[in-house]
């Protein structure tokens, strides 16, 4: 069980008022707040260890390198990868997916090939593939969602053709919290000879992840959505695939030897980490992983179920409020997308803000999904480890207030 009162104390930013009301931060799907330990780790790095990594022949640089590489091992263990060579640091999920599209995609996708996505995707898992498809003359296809926001997986084999090269899909929906049946999907994809990229931006912060058990070929996630700093993310690639991939960004740090005419590249994974990386942020991500492990990913997933079901039960009973997503009780991450009849989510968010409640309103970078749900925008409350039932109650009071003002 999570002791939320105790957890809250670890997050200095939460101890403040917003418009004279206690701040209730419910935009965790966008980014999470940072615990003292993460902030202190970054400060400590700059006060004691700051130097560039991998090249300095002096103690500071060696310490910085050890901390940086040590985080790679933490990440490997956290997501159950086999080797540290399979863990590449990036700027975030978006860059991770772009890396795959640019490097693996440009080499392996040819004219007429099909890239399979789903209507549930975040724009970061649509746009890089559209650009690649345009460049190569490839075709993008989508697994549709029904109006409850569930992937239509009846007869899943129909989506795979002889031309399908890649299935890129979201693990957990950033709009609805729906968890896709990934293992079943990946088994089918592999049986059809199709590689799978998993967007783990909304699953890694909330549930235990094991990329070997999932059997995905690529797995992308961001540090800042799981208590870490912005500017750092991760791409996992199965080693056998990674070895065949040409470099993405190039320049310093990723080379063995450069002559005027050609370059020998560094071994994995440094081959994919060009230039000076966000060293302090990587190390901060390591501190975030330590913190999450201390709480326990199973406990976090349990907490998400409890708080989302509490919130769903309360919000669904408010007259004039529509909640998007499946009605039935299913396992889902702590996300509630809703709309107040006859109002625009932006107006709702403004009034909630005045009640101290920070939520997101808009299309959540998932316009195809919202259109499938029959709307252009929703209000979204997303919960994390420091949110409790009192926060939900303040949200519900604020929704009632918004209805009063806007109707």
């Amino acid at each position, binding site marked *: 069980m999570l002791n939320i009162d105790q957890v809250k104390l670890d997050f200095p930013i939460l101890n403040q008022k917003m418009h004279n009301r206690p701040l209730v931060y419910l935009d965790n799907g966008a980014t999470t707040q940072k615990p003292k330990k993460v902030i202190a780790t970054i400060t400590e790095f700059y006060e004691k260890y700051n130097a560039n990594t991998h090249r300095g022949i002096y103690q500071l640089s060696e310490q910085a390198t050890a901390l940086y590489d040590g985080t790679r091992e933490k990440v490997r263990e956290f997501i159950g990868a086999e080797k540290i060579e399979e863990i590449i640091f990036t700027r975030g999920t978006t860059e991770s997916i772009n890396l795959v599209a640019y490097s693996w995609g440009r080499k392996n996708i040819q004219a007429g090939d099909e890239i399979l996505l789903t209507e549930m995707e975040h724009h970061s898992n649509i746009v890089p593939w559209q650009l690649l498809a345009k460049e190569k003359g490839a075709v993008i296809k989508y697994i549709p969602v029904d109006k409850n926001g569930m992937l239509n997986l009846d007869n899943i084999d129909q989506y795979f053709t002889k031309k399908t090269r890649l299935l890129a899909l979201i693990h957990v929906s950033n709009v609805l919290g729906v968890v896709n049946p990934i293992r079943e999907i990946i088994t089918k994809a592999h049986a059809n000879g199709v590689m799978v990229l998993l967007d783990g931006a909304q699953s890694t912060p909330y549930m235990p992840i094991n990329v070997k058990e999932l059997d995905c070929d690529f797995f992308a996630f961001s540090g800042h959505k799981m208590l870490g700093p912005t500017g750092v993310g991760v791409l996992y690639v199965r080693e056998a695939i990674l070895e065949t991939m040409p470099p993405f960004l190039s320049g310093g740090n990723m080379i063995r030897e450069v002559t005027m005419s050609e370059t020998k590249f560094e071994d994995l994974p440094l081959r994919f980490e060009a230039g000076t990386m966000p060293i302090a942020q990587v190390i901060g991500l390591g501190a975030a992983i330590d913190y999450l492990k201390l709480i326990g990913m199973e406990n976090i997933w349990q907490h998400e179920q409890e708080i989302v079901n509490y919130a769903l039960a309360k919000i669904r009973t408010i007259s004039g409020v529509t909640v998007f997503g499946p009605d039935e009780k299913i396992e889902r991450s702590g996300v509630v997308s809703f709309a107040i009849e006859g109002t625009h989510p932006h*107006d709702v968010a*403004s*009034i909630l803000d005045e009640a101290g409640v920070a939520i997101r*309103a808009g299309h959540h970078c998932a316009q195809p999904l919202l259109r499938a749900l029959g709307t252009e925008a929703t209000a979204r409350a997303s919960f994390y480890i420091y949110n409790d039932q009192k926060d939900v109650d303040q949200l519900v009071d604020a929704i009632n207030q918004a209805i009063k003002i806007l109707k």
Partner: protein
Amino acid sequence: MSVSDIYREEIIDHAKNPRNRGKLADFDIEHKENNPVCGDTITFQMKFDKQKKVKAIAFEGNGCTVSQASTSMLFESVIGKTSEEINKLSSEDVLQLLGVESLTPSRMKCALLSLEALKKAIKQ
């Protein structure tokens, strides 16, 4: 300023019952503008008279109270104005129409969508 100031009766009324809503069959200018942050959109047509003043204007769109009310109020106010006069309108003029002193930066974009659309349309 409290946010409830913007959600006064007059504003809600303009948002729920926008003036000049619809489509002109006979027009000189047509333009579409959207706010990428929230997906608010407006499409409008404008017709000028012989003195080059706005004779009629009509819009259709979807969006928040602030964007729809400001469009309704701004468009109502430009009837009888010339392109030059419209070009001189500022964000302060829109705030004045809305009857508020200021808005948060993100809501400012909602409020100014219609003015931006007008100015772009005239330029073209």
